[in-house]
């Protein structure tokens, strides 16, 4: 199956993935995946653990030889190790790949030296990821969020054209995740292409220009988060305080398909939210009003038809 979303008009493809497959024994970890990523795009691969995200990413980076299919990264093949390509790409791997017992600053300086980048530029990145006050802390003593920031700085210290981030917010607490989002959101501002894998729906929705939803080695759907949700044609759920609206009255409202609820609230399901909201306003029943549309999670559940295994 080939799923390919439209490229933003006039932009060159930074990455072209064609019919990529990886087989481990009997397991098809990646099963005929094709897509393109435009220059300057923030591209997300969303899926549960074991969906084949990391394997796809590793083939795109040139860490693994594809079983079949091809990858063109900035117009060249990343496999076998392409040293002309390496200075133009940045990678952040799942684990924190650091030298033992170095401080944050020493770590970044070492990576800078490998890319022939000045220490001043490295220190600049330390500031951009907000670790200046942790510069002399050893990486073992950094918090999970700080370590992820540092490894992102190590991936970006040489200002690469394309950067790959493999689950950068995995195992972080919600606070640290949101902090990291602010940093990640700005990465493609200067025309840099970003490819990110994640198993968080909200993360893909907030950060990515386009998202490929992946499960069992396949890309099931690929589009902008808004289009994916719109395409789902999912009903909107509106809830109001229970004492304002009897169930029967709710059912009688125009456009309401289904009524549900508990002691404190009544939940109306509808495909025409504007009609329902107008009617509710007419009855002065807007107290405690909540409107919840579909999310990427609903899209995912609809596509895979099963429980989300985060």
């Amino acid at each position, binding site marked *: 199956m080939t799923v390919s979303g439209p490229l933003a008009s006039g932009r060159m493809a930074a990455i072209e993935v064609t019919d990529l497959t990886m087989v481990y024994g009997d397991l098809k970890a990646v099963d005929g995946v094709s897509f393109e990523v435009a220059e300057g795009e923030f591209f997300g691969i969303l899926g549960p653990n074991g969906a084949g995200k990391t394997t796809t990413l590793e083939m795109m980076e040139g*860490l693994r030889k594809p079983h079949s299919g091809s990858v063109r990264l900035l117009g060249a093949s990343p496999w076998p190790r392409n040293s002309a390509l*390496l200075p133009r790409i940045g990678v952040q791997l799942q684990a924190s790949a*650091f030298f033992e*017992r*170095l401080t944050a600053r020493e770590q970044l300086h070492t990576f800078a030296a*490998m890319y022939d980048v000045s220490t001043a530029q490295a220190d600049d990145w330390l500031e951009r990821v907000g670790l200046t006050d942790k510069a002399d802390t050893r990486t073992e003593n950094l918090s999970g969020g700080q370590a992820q920031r540092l490894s992102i700085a190590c991936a970006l210290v040489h200002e690469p054209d394309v950067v790959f981030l493999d689950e950068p917010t995995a195992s972080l607490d919600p606070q640290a995740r949101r902090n990291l989002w602010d940093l990640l959101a700005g990465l493609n501002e200067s025309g840099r292409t970003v490819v990110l894998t994640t198993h968080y729906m909200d993360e893909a929705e907030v950060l990515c220009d386009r998202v490929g939803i992946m499960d069992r080695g396949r890309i099931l759907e690929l589009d902008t988060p808004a289009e994916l949700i719109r395409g789902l044609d999912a009903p909107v759920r509106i809830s109001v305080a229970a004492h304002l609206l009897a169930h029967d009255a709710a059912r009688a409202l125009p456009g309401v398909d289904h009524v549900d609820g508990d002691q404190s609230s009544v939940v109306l399901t509808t495909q025409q939210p504007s009609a329902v909201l107008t009617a509710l306003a007419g009855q002065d029943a807007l107290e405690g009003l909540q409107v919840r549309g579909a999310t990427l999670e609903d899209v995912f559940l609809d596509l895979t038809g099963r429980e989300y295994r985060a």
Partner: protein
Amino acid sequence: MNAFKALSIAIAKGFFRDKASVFFAIIFPLMFLVLFGGIFNDEDTPKAELLQIGDVSLIDDLPADARKAFDDSFDVKKVDDRGDALDEVRKGDADAAVEMRGDELIAHYTQTDQVRAATTAGTLSAFVDAANVRASGQEPKFSFRAEAVEDDSLTTIQFVTPGLLGWAIAMSAAFGAAATLQGWRQSKLLRRLQLAPVRTGSIVGARIFVTVAVALVQMAIFLGLGAGAFGLKLTGNWWLAIPLIICGTLCFMALGLLAGALAKTTEGAVNLANFFVMPMAFLSGSFFPLDGAPGWLQFLSKLLPLRHLNDGMLDVMVRGEGLAAALPVAGILLAFTAVIGLVAVKLFRWETV
């Protein structure tokens, strides 16, 4: 070059900041050097304790120089009661009790320590013989002198230092390589470096450079302490040990890489390296000389690279041999490196799956 320098600095800092690594590479082997150097260096047998019952003219009237020789061998204590003295000998508190009966010197000893008793009796009878010669008023016709076949300077420290140094180098090189390979693989640093524009040569070169530097630091500390505190004397060609140590470091790094390739965790890799190094150190004469070992053991030890490094270092550092002794050893060590390294490369995986 920039990358090589930065990687070397990163690896060196990683090593010297790891207290356990520094302890096992430098402090731990030094403890053995101090122990062996301290215990065995003073190899004079302790003086025999002699109880002198009443007046013993033979001892009391010794001329000054003979008396000095006598005191070097015996610790003389004067007692009056004969029964108490014999009791003390019986209990083993004293080695012998002597008394004079007329012109006869009688030594009482216990048979529980026959070697000691024989030594005491022999020494005493030698003094009696000397007294007889003096009494005859004649110059002695024959004289006797004992001489060791080895050079005067060959004390225990001379033998122990090269062996313990070889062990220390084998340990730090093998552990370092094993732990680095496993640690970098587990943290995915190995993968990360694969995607950085650095040549593999720079990475491997930096690791070798740091390990060799550590080995030379070990050598400097060992020789410094040995010479400063325990009277180690080096012969003219001792510097030939430097190329030998470099070859040995390469060889034990290859062994560490093999351990790192075989094991699945960092702890496992270090334990496996230990499993290789510890028995090898025993069989290679790092802790005790193998001269008395049976033939099959001698043969077995020749199959171990550390044996060759130890022998080579002993030859050039204390036996005064030169290039002719060092070259074949260097060749053998490099051959071991090639074989072990090849096996390690065959077994190498980028990640533990």
